[in-house]
Structure formats: C-alpha cells, structure tokens
C-alpha cells in the first residue's frame, strides 16, 4: 500500500528557538524550491502525475485483455474484464450459487479475523516469552524450527477431519499461518530490546513485570506491527484454503465451485473480492500502526511503503 504521511505531519525544529516549519516530502526531494507554496504546488502536481499514470496503466491492461480475449484467445479459459464485471454485478445484485455474496464475505471474514486475532495473540505472547528467556528459547528452538518447516497449508486437510466443515477448521488453518508470521517477529523484537533501556528502568525501580510491560512490549511493538501486515494476508489465505478443502459456505467455496464449473470469470471475481478485503484490512492496520507508533520520527514512516 502506498501512502504519504509526510505531507500531513509537521516537523518541528527545536534546535533553533521557535522555528516551526511545514516540510513536505516534495520540498525535501527538491531542495531548489525555496518557498513552501511552490513546494506544495510541486507536490500536488507530482501526485496528480503519479495517479494519472497509474490509471493509464490499469486502463491499458484491461483494454488489452478485453481485446485479446475477444479476438485472439479463448475467453472460456481466460475470461475477460467485461465478463468478470458482469459476474461481480450478478453476485452483488442477484446472489451467488451458494446464496447471498455478503453472507460468504462475512463468513470468510469472520474466519480470517478470528484466526488472525488468536494467532497474533499466541504469537506475541509466546514470542515475547521465548525472546526474554534464554533457557526456554534454547529448549524450544528445534521444535519451532521443525514446526515452521512443515508445509502448514496441508494441515487444512487435517483440520477438516478434526473440526469438520464448519468455521473452526478454517480458523485453525488461519491460526497456524498467522502464528508463525507473528511469533518470529515478536521473538526477534523481544530479543533486540536495548539493554540500556532495561538497566535504566531497573535502576529507576522497575520490577521484572514492570520492565516487561513498559520496556519489552513497547520495544517489540514496531516489530510485531510490521508482521501483522503480512499476517492478515496469511489469515485470509488460511480461511480461503480451508474453505477450498471442504466447507459449506464462504468465498473459498465460491471459488472452488467456479473451478468445478469451468467458470474462469467466477474465479477472477472471487479473487477481486478477496483482494479488496485484504486492502481494506491493510488500510485499517496502517491506521492503527500510525496511531500506536506516533512517537516515531516522521522520516521513517514518510517513505513510500510497499
């Protein structure tokens, strides 16, 4: 996700008395522009340019696909944008073969969110615990490495046997995928806490629990938040693959059904719905991250993120 926070943030220069300036990223990258008004216009112009080129690329892609699918290749296998759009419109107005599209979205979302929350919680708690205890880390290291090497997506089949066709088997699949993504970051984050900060807190009178709560957890937060972006993607994959493996509702089932009926447009439409959900979740996570990490210098978050 591309975003630009520099233009909204005010950088305050404290070395010189009472110098407060609004510095935006355009001004930083083009130092020859002196006045802030010029810089702002240049920034806006650049933004317009970037967005027009993006739009152009999308249009070019869709049009070329539409044309080749109409005249050159078989749309039965490759479908085409107009067919996908028609499919999406059909889903949202009439409904899918499994019933209302909203019901499928809600089911998949519930599974993904539940797997995400549980997996992230377990990953954070265990990651921090092992990150702070050398002994525990040494004992668990080979098991964790082995568990991480297992192709976890295969577990989806096992979970269907264990938990049945309902939601819990998908939540379990999402959980195992999310857990490891978060665990390793939380572990690393808890390990890399500045010794200086811990010593300082101890001297100031902090107990072990207070050190954990006020030093270790906040230090690891930026590591953990970074992992949550990819983790939500994993949660969606877990839920969809789980539904693929065996389910009675959900977007994965819808895609599986489209595959069964050679409905390429249905597969694309399902993909688009899932992508939109993932992007929305990503946007929410970025909002939460910026709130939680508002203490960080703006330079770190102002760069274009991918």
């Amino acid at each position, binding site marked *: 996700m591309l975003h630009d926070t520099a233009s909204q943030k005010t950088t305050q220069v404290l*070395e010189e008395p009472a110098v407060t300036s609004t510095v935006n990223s355009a001004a930083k990258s083009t130092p020859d522009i002196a006045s802030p008004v010029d810089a702002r216009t240049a920034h806006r112009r650049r933004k317009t340019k970037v967005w027009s080129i993006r739009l152009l690329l999308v249009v070019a892609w869709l049009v070329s696909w539409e044309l080749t699918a109409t005249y050159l290749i078989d749309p039965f296998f490759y479908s085409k944008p107009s067919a996908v759009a028609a499919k999406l419109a059909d889903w949202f107005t009439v409904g899918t073969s499994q019933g209302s599209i909203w019901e499928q979205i809600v089911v998949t979302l519930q599974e993904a969110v539940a797997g995400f929350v549980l997996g992230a919680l377990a990953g954070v708690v265990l990651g921090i615990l092992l990150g702070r205890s050398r002994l525990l880390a040494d004992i668990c290291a080979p098991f964790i490495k082995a568990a991480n090497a297992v192709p976890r997506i295969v577990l989806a089949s096992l979970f269907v046997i264990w938990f049945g066709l309902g939601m819990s088997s998908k939540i379990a699949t999402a959980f195992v995928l999310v857990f490891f993504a978060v665990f390793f970051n939380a572990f690393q984050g808890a390990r890399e806490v500045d010794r200086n900060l811990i*010593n*300082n807190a101890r001297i*100031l009178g902090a107990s072990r629990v207070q050190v954990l709560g006020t030093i270790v957890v906040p230090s690891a937060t930026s590591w953990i938040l970074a992992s949550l972006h990819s983790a939500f993607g994993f949660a969606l994959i877990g839920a969809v693959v789980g539904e693929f493996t065996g389910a009675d509702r959900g977007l994965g089932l819808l895609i599986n059904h489209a595959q069964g009926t050679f409905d390429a447009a249905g597969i694309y439409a399902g993909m688009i719905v899932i992508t939109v959900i993932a992007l929305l979740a990503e946007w929410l996570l970025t909002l939460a991250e910026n709130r939680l990490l508002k*203490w960080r210098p703006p330079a770190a978050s102002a760069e274009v993120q991918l």
Partner: protein
Amino acid sequence: MAELIELRGATKRFPTGSGGVHTAVRDLTMTVDRGEFVAVVGPTGCGKSTTLSLVSGLEPPSEGEVLVGGQHVTGIPEGVGYMFQNDAVLPWRSVLDNVAAGPRYRGESKAAARSKARDWVQRVGLGGFEDYYPHQLSGGMRKRVAMAQTLVNEPSILLMDEPFSALDVQTRALMQDELLRLWSGTGAGVVFVTHDLEEAIALADKVVVMTSSPATVKATFTVGLDRPRTVEEVRLTSQFLEIYREIWDSLREEVEKAREQGATRVA
C-alpha cells in the same frame, strides 16, 4: 557512620566470546563520602564503567566487596541513580512521562508522579516541552530529560557514565554547570566517570586516576577549587592548571600504556 560507597578489593571478570576471561577491574579499593563528588578518569576502555555497574548492583563482583551505606550490594541498592553514556530515555514516551517513570515504578499514583515530573522538567529547563517525544529534541535536551528522570527519584548516590561525552563542547559546558547547580545542596555522593580530565577537575572534589586495563586505582587527587564553580571560568584559573598538570603526569603514562596495548592487539 559507614562510608556512602566503599569498594574493597573488588575484581570483575567477564567471559569473553572466544572462551577466555577478561578482567575488567582488579583489586579496586576506593570510598565515596556523602555529598562528595568523585570523578574517575582513565584511558578509554579501561573498565571505568564496570566500577559503576558494581556499585549499582547491575553486576556482582567476582571477588572482593562492594558496600553501599555499609550494606553489601545484592541487587540494586536503594537510592541509586544512574545516568548512562547512551540515551536511555524511552522513545515512545513524552518528556513528562519519561520523567514520571521512576515514581510510577516506585508505586506512586499517576497524578502524583506527573506532578513531581512536571516540577523536575521545569528544573532542568525543559518547561514547555512536556508533551514532546524524545526524537523531537536535540541531544542536549535529551540529556536534560535523562537527568530529570534520574533526579526525580532523589538519589543519595548518583552514578554517571560519561553522560556528556556525545555532546558538542558548548552544550557540554552548559550541562556541566546545570549538573553542579542541581546537585549542590542535595547531599548526594556522585561518581562521575569520564575520560576528559578537564571535565573531571572542573566538576569534582576528588579525582581518581585508573590504570590501563585491567583497571585499578593508580592515584587519588583532591581538587581544592572553591564552590560554587562555573566550569568555563574555573578552567582558566592558575589553580586549575596546576592540578591539571599534576594529574596529567599520572594519567599520561596510563594513556600511553593503553595505546600500546591497543597497538599490540591490532597487530
């Protein structure tokens, strides 16, 4: 009455990465009285900081004894404040909450801790910056935060590990004066580690010269300069130069030895 701080033949060894043993300090014997400002000088990397770790209880001695207020040091003694060489302020907390950390850890209510902190933020000259985050402050201002954070607990022992070494010359002089102003009248004993002899003499009542690694006390000098002092002025007096020459004679040998050690280590 027992000395405030007493080290008796304290030795500290650390295991090195390659399986050997590194002796940081050996057979260290020194005392610090209440209200006394002691500066510890020695060549870079000789183990001066280890002395502070021993007194603060962060590291137990391998041999010998460390006493604070007549009690053996086990864990962190009551009333110790420690300013580290590197910034130890919490980047995710505002200036005010950084300073309030100590009282909060010691069980005071949020409101009480904050009102104490507000007072100390004023005293170190950061009034108006309470809600700023550390990254928005200059190096000197962050040092002021660290100072307030340490002093808000009203320590009877103040350990300082080259706290101003990363600052530019003018800011350093300013901070040194600030430290003397805040310390005077508190009755706290100070151990101030530095490799800057000028700083040591300008601040201290007593200068302890350490040998090159493994460190031990080589000589102790008394600084008879009058208080209150202004560091920029005191270093121009003839008395200052006299003491400086005397201590430097002792310190120079060790600095040269340390340089040779460094050279053989590189070769």
